């Protein structure tokens, strides 16, 4: 049946919405605060980390406000780590949904990615408003730069989620490898340090990781002149673009091979 592009788009939007609703009820249920857990959970994590870092005096003698530092840092980790975590095994777990012809593998991915990002973003905004409201943190210096950094991290998270998630359909080893990788990447991701604090050699090494650039950009937007930042957005964009292309390619291949083993 000839289906126009606009009609396909409408179907896809509908299916993604249906999958998101399904996921929300499945994961959070209707008891107590229900869907609010979507950002309640990452908020609790971020709060815990902020408290720990404050107690440990984690700003390495710099004059950075530690609470804002922790919130910007840990929220950035949620964007890539949790999003990827949601997408590993997403195909295997939802194979039966594919009997509904409108539901495609990529819809399952998009719905999970969007949901995870919505949760992380809401948690980020609510925490900032909360602490700004009680006067513990300052408002961002440049809102647009913060948003730009956030969007770059979101793009990175989405692309990485597609690559890793699709790769788990080839082999479960990928899933096993992802967990230690995510764990080891966390301290290197720029969440817990500013690149400027490192030695030049370490800076060069750490700046190979794309998410570091996003966090630095976001922190420049947040703190303004009190921090010196190091980032190259065109570098991060190139990596994101490459990951996106690889991810889409792997997903297409994964949906062709679905059920073939």
């Amino acid at each position, binding site marked *: 049946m000839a289906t126009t592009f606009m009609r396909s788009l409408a179907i896809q939007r509908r299916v993604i919405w249906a999958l998101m609703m399904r996921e929300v*009820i499945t994961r959070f249920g209707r008891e107590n605060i229900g869907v609010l857990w979507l950002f309640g959970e990452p908020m609790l994590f971020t709060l815990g980390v902020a408290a720990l870092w404050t107690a440990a005096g984690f700003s390495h003698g710099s004059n950075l406000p530690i609470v804002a530092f922790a919130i910007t840092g840990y929220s950035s980790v949620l964007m890539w780590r949790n999003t990827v975590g949601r997408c590993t095994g997403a195909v295997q777990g939802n194979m039966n*949904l594919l009997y509904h*012809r409108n539901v495609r593998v990529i819809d399952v991915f998009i719905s999970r990615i969007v949901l995870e990002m919505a949760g992380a973003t809401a948690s980020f905004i609510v925490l900032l408003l909360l602490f700004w409201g009680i006067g513990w943190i300052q408002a961002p210096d440049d809102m647009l730069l913060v948003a730009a950094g956030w969007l770059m991290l979101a793009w990175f998270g989405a692309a990485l989620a597609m690559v890793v998630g699709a790769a788990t359909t080839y082999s479960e080893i990928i899933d096993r490898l992802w967990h230690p990788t995510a764990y080891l990447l966390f301290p290197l991701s720029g969440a817990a340090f500013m690149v400027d604090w490192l030695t030049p050699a370490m800076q060069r090494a750490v700046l190979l990781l794309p998410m570091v650039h996003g966090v630095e950009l976001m922190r420049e937007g947040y703190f303004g002149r009190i921090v010196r930042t190091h980032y190259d957005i065109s570098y991060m964009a190139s990596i994101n673009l490459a990951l996106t292309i690889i991810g889409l390619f792997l997903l297409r291949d994964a949906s062709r091979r679905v059920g*073939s083993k």
Partner: protein
Amino acid sequence: MIELQSVSKDYHTRRGPRRVLDKVTLRLERGQHLGILGRNGAGKSTLIRLLSGAELPSSGRIHRGMSVSWPLAFTGAFQPHLTGIDNLRFICRVYGVDWKPLLPFIEEFTELGLYLREPVVHYSSGMMMRLAFALSMAIEFDCFLIDEGLAVGDARFGRRCHVELFEKRNDRSFILVSHDPTIIRAYCEQACVLHEGRLLHFDQLEDAYAFYDSTMQPIPAVQFD
């Protein structure tokens, strides 16, 4: 019209690729009722998955000129922690249908009462089957895919399924896949046999049954190219 042109499906096994369907060709017109007979392991489920679009063929082309249902009364896509109504709403969202007008039919047909608002995980298999069948009837399709298994359920349920599907929707097409010739004999005016990955067409129904019977012998008595 649904058309399968030389559709093959290979699965990867440890010993290399295994061909489950081999150049299957099939044409189904609107309103036609087709039975496909096949022994266990003949490739029936694979054919259903390809027809419903859950999987794509390794080679060949599938053309769907009419809307095709998911396998009738299929319970696999239920999310156990969702209630019966949640599952209805999910299906309706996916197919772009308003769920509220459908509720009376679902309530009446499933006879689940309060359980419709309980998580599916608490259902018995009979309740699950009633819900699954009702959901299949809630969305209108030009062609229904019917896997065996529909025989589950008590006589009353069987009778009601019969009314909904074979009486009220007799103008639709369906493809009924089974290892049981009596079901096919009852509902289909045309039959094919799926044997060793090939779909064999017969002009006369009786020829299909006769061939199918012969494949049930310990050693197949009929050879084919």
